[in-house]
């Protein structure tokens, strides 16, 4: 039971990092990406590869993961500079589908469908951390650091620049703001932070495969942000916690047939998303609706 609670806490912290970093571009720059799981995956695969082939030190694996995700995110920045709304959603979705194919086929890096096994645990100055309880300290601290970084950015001139661009790109440019550069940097930061979650996930679970980085995950993350409340600080965390606890809670209902638990979880999760959009479209923490 205790291990179960800490496992859940670790997952909430990891998905919390993903939701916070996604909210950074959704809530402040108005960039609704359906490709966030790509950067989660890139972070996981990169840190696993570095951990297995170079050094298990977390001080190397995480920066490497961030770097790779940051570079690849430039591909996502391209459509973000040119199109908005459903066009950008479709572009990010296209990137997500392409990435899943690459993750499944690039066997030397991702292990193909089978995935990567025996990924070394988090290693801080030679100390290995794999117990869920100790790992929880690491994951929660990482979450707090990610929150602190995004909070600092959002409250600075950079955050004002982002919101200004979201509200009116032309006016922002008329006050000297380099719109493409600012948007690109926002996408890069968001992707790099998602890679942190990927690196933590890989070293915590010690096994990864493409299943964790598919479109469903990207939509789950978007749902966490929207259900929690876009552009708020608590929102993505509440959304992440809710969408992770909700399905896992029903596995305790003993009268349900064990073989159908997975499907029932998915059904509850799917309908939960729908019902929340009907009754709380502005999010649980959100102040306003429908922006």
């Amino acid at each position, binding site marked *: 039971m205790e291990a179960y609670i800490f496992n859940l806490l670790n997952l909430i912290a990891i998905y919390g990092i993903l939701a916070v970093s996604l909210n950074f571009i959704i809530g402040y720059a108005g960039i609704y990406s359906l490709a966030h799981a790509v950067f989660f995956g890139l972070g996981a695969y990169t840190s696993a590869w570095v951990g297995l082939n170079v050094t298990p030190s977390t001080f190397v694996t995480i920066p490497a993961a961030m770097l790779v995700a940051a570079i690849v995110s430039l591909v996502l920045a391209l459509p973000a500079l040119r199109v908005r709304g459903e066009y950008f959603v479709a572009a990010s979705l296209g990137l997500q589908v392409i990435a899943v194919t690459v993750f499944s086929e690039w066997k030397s890096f991702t292990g193909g469908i089978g995935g990567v096994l025996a990924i070394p645990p988090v290693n801080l100055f030679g100390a290995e951390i794999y117990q869920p309880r100790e790992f929880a300290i690491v994951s929660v601290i990482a979450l707090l650091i990610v929150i602190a970084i995004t909070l600092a950015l959002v409250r600075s*001139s950079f955050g004002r620049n982002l919101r200004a661009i979201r509200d009116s790109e032309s006016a922002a*440019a008329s006050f000297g703001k380099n719109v493409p550069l600012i948007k690109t940097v926002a996408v890069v930061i968001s992707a790099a932070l998602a890679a942190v979650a990927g690196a933590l996930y890989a070293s915590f679970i010690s096994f990864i495969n493409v299943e964790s980085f598919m479109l469903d995950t990207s939509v789950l993350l978007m749902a966490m942000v929207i259900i929690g409340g876009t552009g708020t600080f608590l929102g993505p965390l509440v959304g992440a916690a809710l969408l992770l606890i909700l399905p896992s809670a029903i596995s305790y209902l003993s009268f349900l047939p064990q073989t159908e638990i997975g499907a029932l979880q998915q059904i509850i999760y799917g309908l939960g998303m729908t019902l929340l959009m009907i009754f709380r479209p502005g999010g649980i923490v959100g102040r306003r609706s429908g922006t």
Partner: protein
Amino acid sequence: MTSTTIAHGEPLLQVRNLDKSFGGMKAVDDVTLDLRAGIVTTLVGPNGAGKTTLFNLITGNLARDSGEVEWLGQDIAGGKPHLIARRGIMRTYQDLRLFDSMSVWDNIMSATEYGLLPMPMSSAARHRRKERIEEVLERTGLSDKRDTRALDLAYAERKFLSMARIMATEARLWLLDEPASGLDPNSYERFLKILRDDREAGTTICIIEHNLDIVIGISDRIAFLDRGRLLADAEPDTVLNDPELAKIYFGDQS
């Protein structure tokens, strides 16, 4: 921003033979015009005369077909809008384009900062910026609304916020696109005072305006555009008393 000094009344921005057409229709047709330092030039003309298009060509929001735009002797035509803005040419929009989700204070603050990443500022500089924004709020009558979201402001307040953003910058040339349209006469005085004070402080202003009270109240020069062509560029009296221009402007109403 460039800090080249230039004498009062000398050309700050020179438009030379500027052309722009949209699908065969000439929106700006061979316009040559000087915007002189420290004075207010008013652009007048019927709707569709090409006034806003001229602004868009100067600020880089639109690409010209041919012609030059010289700023302190340097050709800036074809430059990107944000780089032209950084030279000291800033504008307002007829449809305002406020940062609607942000507070009045953040709107003004954001207009003054364009660095990619937050710059370290000395506390003195921080203090000066705060003072400047306070002063702008005071002059536009928005002091009580500083924490209100731009979207929630009344119409006139939105117009003044659009002015406040440009007032807080270090811009040397303001291009104002119908900043007073729809204002009630009570707001005219506040608006004219802003323009006069800033002209006094050395700002060069070019303003598109329809309201004759405002045109007469503020103009040092009037440039008259019709169907993309510059028909006159002279002292207010000369332009306002020209019967030909009056006929174009007022049509059959006169």
